[in-house]
């Protein structure tokens, strides 16, 4: 956004970075601010920090609920076991594939949807509400309707496409999982992108068309650069979400035919296998993967959290 709008808010003291001396009043204000934040921060640390630390601790142990007597500290051998395992990398590959394909499709469709919602003149509220319906449906419920639609016995979609039992075939299953995921979360993408579209000043577009820019040029040369922060945030959110895909796979294939995601596999090891050591190792690995994705987006592409200076770089 425009830098000028922010100037009056932050630039009260002379424009000098670093640690300017604060007045007594400012100090008191800051202390009060910290105090007011403290309870929320403490609660957040308690509910997020402790489980993370605890699972890291569990991941360093041999701890299988079925062998309670054999619990012991084993260092990083769980990590070696998981990272040298074929099943884990298969699941990792499947997860990455689903993430990349579904996010790319969502971005394109979401952009189209956002443009449509942005440009709608009549029934704007209705159009927006309707397009948000898939996002409002509980994922498991939506997944079940896809499941039955593609089921060999009851499925109208399976009949329509003449497929025998698409959910028993790996490629077809993955395609259906991605379809379900895209259908479900494109509205979310569109919503975030629409917020970005609202940032594009009409004057800029008018000026561009005065200069003879075609619609495509206006889109790529004017809108996209201005929207970049919003697009990156949308991509970041969706990538993180897609990487943790669970419900759709759980309902659609239960991970059969090598369609397990890393989250499914973690669930299988933790809840079905009762192996707290291996299961926690997997959740820590997912946490690390998610952290790396976030890092790449924030540091390399310069995405920033919404409300955190939409102007881009800080």
């Amino acid at each position, binding site marked *: 956004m425009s830098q000028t709008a922010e100037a009056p808010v932050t630039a009260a003291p002379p424009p000098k970075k670093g640690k300017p001396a604060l007045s007594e009043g400012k100090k008191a204000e800051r202390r009060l601010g910290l105090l007011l934040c403290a309870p929320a921060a403490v609660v957040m640390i308690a509910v997020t920090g402790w489980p993370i630390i605890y699972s890291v601790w569990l991941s360093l142990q041999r701890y299988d609920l079925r062998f309670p007597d054999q619990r012991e500290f084993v260092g990083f051998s769980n990590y070696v076991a998981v990272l040298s395992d074929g099943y884990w990398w298969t699941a990792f590959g499947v997860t990455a594939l689903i993430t990349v394909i579904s996010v790319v499709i969502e971005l394109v469709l979401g952009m189209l949807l956002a443009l449509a919602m942005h440009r709608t003149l009549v029934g704007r509220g209705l159009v927006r509400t309707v397009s948000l319906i898939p996002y409002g449906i509980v994922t498991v419920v939506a997944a079940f309707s896809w499941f039955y639609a593609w089921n060999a016995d009851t499925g109208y979609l399976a009949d329509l496409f003449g497929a025998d039992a698409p959910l*028993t075939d790996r490629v077809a299953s993955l395609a259906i999982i991605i379809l379900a995921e895209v259908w479900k979360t494109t509205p979310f993408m569109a919503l975030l992108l629409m917020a970005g579209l609202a940032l594009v000043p009409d004057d800029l577009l008018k000026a561009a068309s005065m200069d003879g820019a075609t619609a495509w040029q206006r889109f790529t040369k004017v809108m996209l650069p201005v929207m970049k922060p919003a697009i990156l945030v949308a991509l970041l959110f969706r990538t993180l979400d897609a990487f943790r895909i669970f419900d759709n796979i759980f309902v659609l294939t239960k991970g059969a035919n090598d369609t397990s995601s890393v989250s499914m596999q973690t669930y299988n090891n933790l809840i079905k296998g009762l192996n707290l050591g291996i299961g926690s190792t997997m959740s820590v690995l997912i946490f690390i993967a998610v952290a790396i994705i976030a890092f790449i987006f924030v540091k390399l592409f310069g995405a920033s959290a919404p409300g955190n200076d939409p102007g881009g770089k800080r």
Partner: protein
Amino acid sequence: MRSSPGRRRLLAAAGATLVAASTVAACGSESGTQINVYYAPEQNFQSVIDQCNKEAGGKYEIVYRKLPRDADGQREQMVRRLAAGDTDLDILGLDVTWVPEFAEAKWLEEWTGADKTAAEDDVLEGPLSTAMWNDKLYAATKNTNVQLLWYDDTVTPTPPATWREMIDAAKDLKSQGKPYQILFTGAQYEGLVVTYNTLVASYGGKILSDDGKSVVMDKGAIDALRLLKEVASEGITDPSLTNAQEQQVQQAFERPDSDAAFELNWPYVYAAIQDANPDRAKNFKWARYPGIDGPGRVTVGGYNLAVSAYSQHKPESFEAALCLRSAESQRYSAINDGVPPTIESVYDGDDAEFVKAYPMWETIAEELDDAAVRPLTVVYQNLSTITSKVLSPPQDIDPESTAAELRDQLQKALDSKGVLP
């Protein structure tokens, strides 16, 4: 931190409310002892419970807590609660493959003394071995189950006795343009493990050692892989074999245009076909599961009742469990819910009502006499997941290399080092 004392009070109050709420929920009924039975949905099990409550004469009240319908869901719920030391669970309905796992985790109370004698009395050997772990009794058998060979006697008047005969018959029928398919559970799930285990036992082979601690995978186990591959790849089974669970197998035989000549499935299909396809039901006959040189050795299923180690009413729970699986209760469940009894004397040819509701009782009893048990091991869940994964799809089996893969993966699972797919 001026605000902290107030905050702490608030937190304490919130905590106290939570604790109070859960305590209130925990002791719902004040009057008398309540015994909670966690058991899979079974249509007429409530009548069995009502009968036992009558016999208890107010000493305790048994309450039926229904578990989810699918086995994984049942196990997950119990496991989660037992891992947290939940004292609300008294009697647990365990699938025959779960006893070692639960016993080893110290979640089950051992059966001793008079209770043990009563629970072992007159029980068939195969089912009884599923209730034991390390030579101790941890559960009382409630019902068992075995698959039979179902066939259409207009297609094959004499059923095949061995797999070889069945395969030849199927090829023969196919060339004559008659229904020919051999249907069995071939999807990637427990059902495929059951089929494979039956084949291995019929060959006299072994997957695990008797103590369940090491992998054997002997010649019989490899021969079974070869046979499984042959059946799956010679075009004599359902094209959607890799999607076939019990229900799909059952429906594929019931369809009016069915191409199936043979079905290997649990006895419930007999009742099911009467409604689904009355025409075919008239010719729907059963025989012993085929084997290698004679009848096969069939994998037993079924349920056992165990008492939770966290139960607060153990003596009453043992008594209640014994009533729920007594000979009368088992007879009632066999007639009304179709589940085969584990007590030998219930298989009584003079009992007209039983014989009428259960015409295939004699074949079931014969199979039970020489039944096979799935490998008894603490990590059965892992073993089953891995076996079904490695065997899928059955037509891609390569006997030697599949056996090597199974050996390697199963050993890792036994050491609880492996990763589940």
